[in-house]
């Protein structure tokens, strides 16, 4: 099932309530998201992006996953 940008933001928000989240793209399967959260400080990019993927709860999984592509940018606040 195609997703909406708002659903993606909501899922990330549930895991990272204080994050600054920007989701772009609206074709239903290809999105880009920027997530800035204090909890990312001290984590490398792999750890940061794993945290975001975990929040998406399997939406990225497999050839039949709802989300085909999510270009992710993650960082701690400046």
């Amino acid at each position, binding site marked *: 099932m195609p997703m909406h940008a708002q659903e993606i933001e909501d899922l990330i928000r549930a895991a990272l309530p204080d994050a600054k989240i920007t989701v772009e793209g609206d074709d239903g399967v290809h999105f880009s998201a920027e997530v800035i959260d204090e909890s990312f400080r001290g984590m490398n990019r*792999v750890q940061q*992006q794993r945290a975001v*993927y975990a929040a998406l709860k399997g939406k*990225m999984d*497999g050839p039949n996953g709802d989300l085909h592509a999510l*270009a992710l940018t993650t960082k701690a606040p400046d």
Partner: protein
Amino acid sequence: MTDAKTQIEETVKANDVVLYMKGTKSMPQCGFSSRVAGVLNFMGVDYADVNVLTDDAIRQGIKDYSDWPTIPQLYVKGEFVGGCDIITEMTLSGELDTLFDENGVAYDKDAADKIREANA
């Protein structure tokens, strides 16, 4: 231990740099795989490419191995480095050069600088 996991472990330990990708380094079949292979090709890195499209067990196995949901996946000296977005950021920031330097991976520094100049 599953066969796929054993096979993945052997591959990432036997090669300094390994890219799990859709398609091959000479014929990528996905834009994200193409971007990472393109960077490594342009930088003249000697790397092994594994086409996940030819083996479903490896295609799923590599996601389980790294706990990472997407392909491509780059490994250096057996360690998972990241996917397309991370490799792109690291290339532009110079962190990929540093990683290669630290691990004794040969690459063309001038080519890496050219990528950064073109994207400045």
